[in-house]
């Protein structure tokens, strides 16, 4: 598991460097992020254009290969809290005359779960103190996102990802992640 963490940690800066060579100011997105819709959290991400895939004949439909490093948090109160380091790589499509876009991507994530292991209940007043154990998982995902521009500087988007948690000493478990957010184009 340490190796996976290492790979992820190496992956993120490398995305950054790669991205910086092709685009100067990457957008920043902030999203409501949730596992299954009811374990809520937040996600912050950026995005780098790796390669323009649009050919001369297809100018009306813009396609580009992107990579998006992300950091997310979600929690199921009184149960577990989770930190996710993730990088998505995928293709984003946009029609020339339309403000809407969609994207299909594969994610490679490292999920660290802080699980409540014991709750000590004070019998005098009902106060609870919790102790936690932590586990790490490898989380590959398949993601689909769509959205549209709200203004020249702001897009909204929605994303759904389906993945499998591996590791943590348990058998694989499917997970579904939802995102609803805003992407800000930083001024040059």
């Amino acid at each position, binding site marked *: 598991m340490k190796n996976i963490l290492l790979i992820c940690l190496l992956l993120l800066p490398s995305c950054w460097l790669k991205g910086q060579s092709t685009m100067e100011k990457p957008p920043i997105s902030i999203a409501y992020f949730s596992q299954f*819709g009811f374990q809520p959290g937040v996600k912050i991400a950026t995005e780098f254009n790796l390669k323009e895939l649009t050919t001369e004949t297809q100018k009306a439909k813009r396609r580009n290969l992107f990579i998006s490093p992300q950091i997310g948090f979600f929690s199921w109160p*009184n149960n577990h809290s989770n930190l996710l380091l993730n990088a998505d790589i995928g293709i984003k499509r946009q029609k020339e005359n339309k403000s809407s876009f969609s994207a299909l991507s594969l994610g490679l994530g490292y999920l660290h779960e802080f699980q409540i292991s*014991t709750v000590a*209940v004070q019998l005098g007043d009902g106060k609870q103190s*919790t102790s936690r154990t932590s586990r790490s998982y490898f989380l590959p995902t398949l993601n689909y996102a769509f959205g549209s521009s709200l203004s020249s500087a702001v897009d909204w988007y929605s994303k759904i990802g389906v993945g499998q948690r591996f590791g943590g000493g348990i*058998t694989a478990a499917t997970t579904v992640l939802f995102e609803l957010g805003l992407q800000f184009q930083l001024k040059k």
Partner: protein
Amino acid sequence: MTRKDFIKNIATLGIATPFMASLLTSCTKENIEFFEEVPANFNGKIIIVGAGAAGLIAGHILQQKNIDFQIIEASSIYGGRVKKAADFADFPIDLGGEWIHTNPSILAKLLNDSTSQADIDIIPYNPKTISVWKDGKLRKRNVASHFYSEYKFKSTTWYGFFEKHIVPNFSEKIIYNSPITEIDYTGDKVTLKNNQGGNFSADKVLVTVPVPILQSNYIQFNPPLPSEKIAAVNNIGFPDGIKAFIEFSERFYPDLTFADGGLINGGDTLYYDAGFGKDAKSNVLALFSVSEETGKYTNLESDTATFEKIMSELDEIFDGQATKYYKKHIIQNWSKEPFIRGSYSHYDNYGDMDILGEPLDNKVFFAGEALHPTDSSTVHGAGESGYDAVVSMISG
């Protein structure tokens, strides 16, 4: 709330709670409404029939109020559907009520003693490996681990909670092996008779026996119960109930197996790792079954036949590994307990609960799991109903 209801409702619960709470607060005062300070306008004697969770909490509150009372229990032990096997494995086992189907701070509410310095360790019960046995196939459904969260005691049991914190305060006031067969409330005092002809009398009586005991007319009321109450009692469902615990030399089973179909419609018959989240080294697999189909385990001629039925089912699910690794077992057939006769109440019409709960002539009162407006079928619901009944008895 039953386990099945819980699975259905958990999504709603998750949405309702502020998400940062668990991360930011490692020490929280939970939102439990403690029992109110009730003025006691009563100085007579109360008899409680039944020493289950409802009767014990009622006795505990009366003790705190210095009101004269006695608990009369039919069997040789207290606890009723809360029972433990202390020495079966390297952790104590709940033979009846096991999960805490609510915020665990309820324990402080039931104790109702702000001077207590004690604490108690609880584990969130969130099985990670989950399977469904359906159409002759065992299918992994680990995805359900994301939705499952309840609580259990870590190193004690529901029985242990009563044994350590509730009963020592009044243990001498419980009379055992004394099944009440008659309750006469025609006079100023209520008189009770047990099956050996022993007589008791009190100013007020709290009846906490399980619904089937009322349905079977084991207790004769004089005057008889109003016909409306009899109809309400007879409407309440009370399916068969069983738990079995089997120790194996190897572990070959997931944390939780739904043995009766899907995740949503199943949940009435479960095989689960009884030591999950506890500091347990022994491999103990438990069967929990409460449903209309539970009779297939409970209505056999002997515990041996029940055990054989369970083992053949396990061998089918787990490819003969149950027989291969079997060490020992214990069976708790609640349907065959003479003073329980099943599992817990199921209502088709919740109006019946109000009718069942109505006191008789302000002298005979009722409590028990069947009488909790939102959390019937639970230990804490039974306890809270005992408290509510005491409030009506001493303040009315």
